[in-house]
């Protein structure tokens, strides 16, 4: 299938709760919410800890390292901005949260569950997205 170059991929933008994540991303830091009460990390942003329900948290920078928890290779055209096939990957960060992302710098056929990966920022004009490449 051919890509439609006039349609970009969907680019998320910050809302109030997630602004530190997107601000950090522009500076190459992968920011996560961490509960001040029980130290649990959480993803995505929410107003309370999904372990202990405490509303208190800090934004902390993650290491950017993780492993491939699982992945798929998409062949179905849902959105015209994506060139098929592409990988959809869940990276389990060292800190615990799981990010939906895409692996870069590797052929889809070489991706394996458990592969060690590190963050690789995909920069756009006003947003930077955490993609991952083999570590």
């Amino acid at each position, binding site marked *: 299938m051919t890509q439609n170059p006039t349609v970009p991929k969907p680019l998320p933008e910050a809302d109030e709760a*997630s602004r530190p994540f997107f601000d950090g991303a522009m500076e190459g830091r992968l920011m996560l919410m961490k509960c001040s009460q029980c130290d649990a990390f959480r993803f995505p942003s929410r107003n309370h800890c999904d372990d202990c329900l405490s509303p208190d948290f800090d934004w902390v920078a993650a290491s950017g390292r993780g492993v491939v928890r699982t992945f*798929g290779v998409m062949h179905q055209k849902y959105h015209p901005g994506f060139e098929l096939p592409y990988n959809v990957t869940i990276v389990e960060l060292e800190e615990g949260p799981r990010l939906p992302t895409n692996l870069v710098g590797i052929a889809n056929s070489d991706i394996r569950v458990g592969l060690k990966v590190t963050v690789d920022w995909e920069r756009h004009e006003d947003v930077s997205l955490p993609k991952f490449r083999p570590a």
Partner: protein
Amino acid sequence: MPHPLRGAAAITGLGMTPMGRIYGKTTAELAADAVRIAIADSGLAKNEIDGLLINAGITGTTGGGLTLGLQNYLGLENLRLMNHMNAAGSTAAQMVQYATMAIAAGMANNVVCVFADAPLKENTSAGAAYGAAARNPSRPKGMPGLYAAAGYFGANTPYALAARRHMALYGTTQDHLGQIAVSQRAWAVMSPLAQMREPMTIADYHASRWIIEPLHLLDCCLVSNGAVAVIVSSPDRAKSLAQPPVYIHGMGQGHPGDHGRVGSDWETETGGKIAARTAFAMAGCTVDEIDVCELYDCYTYTVLVTLEDYGFCKKGEGGPFVSDGKLGPGGALPTNTGGGELSGYYMWGMTPLSEAIIQTRGAGGDRQVAKHDRVLCTGNGGSLSYHAALILSPHAD
């Protein structure tokens, strides 16, 4: 002492409209058709209906969808129980559960549970019916927007990701998934209700196009327009009606929730594990005593992981378990005997429930399983997020 809800109600009516690419009726009209057929099937008088539970499908309640207005459309005046319910694909089994509890509590005697959906439009693909969110032109907000940014769309994605992890952890193969599709198609060939009745081989399975690896087209359910209604009645009333009663012996639910949570093993351990314990304890039976399975099968993988979570085999052994064709006609564990959602028709949780009723009644015709003393029916929704189970029997006790 038996559980007080064991046998506390029976399914007395089943109504099914034509299914698939059928057009020209609203979901309310389809639902009304199914209810009319179910009432006639049961032998109840319309004014005996005193409960109405509605599940609106993906078409929903807005824009001409299925609303509480169905009551007035059907002219039901004697309702003592009424609600709209939605826990995705687990709703159908849940409606029967809430109806059973209401009947046991004396709050109703004959409860209609109805599902209707019409996501298919003429000249559009089945995928388009379920992929609308991907075409939203506005920018996704916040960290959840990372899903869309990664091209994580539709229900196909999480189920592919779950299946992939099972394959990586346990050595499950594409052939294992394919065998489930092939076994179910062999049942569909024998079912006049099924949409896909052409025989299928494992080669056909492998040749079907990828949707999202590791899921082929033939790993994925159909999309159907149509409606199904079932009527749940008190056991006393059930005895003197038109159909053999289908007694509810066991019920259970399990909802493991957010699959993004740190530490979750949602991909390979579902709410079926929790639901199974509750349902088997209520029914007073073990997994070895189940004769027929009607398992929610939005994808082949859903069947595999459900079999494991109910204990038909050990965790991780679902692939080898199904590989001898035991789920198909003549096999040791007849499963999805109408073809399921993969090859029969896609009415969310009403697909396994309707076929479970047919098999428990012994009304399956060419595809009827000889021994059907205990029939397991499961519903699953979300991304393996919501789960409900029924154990049905033709025997009052």
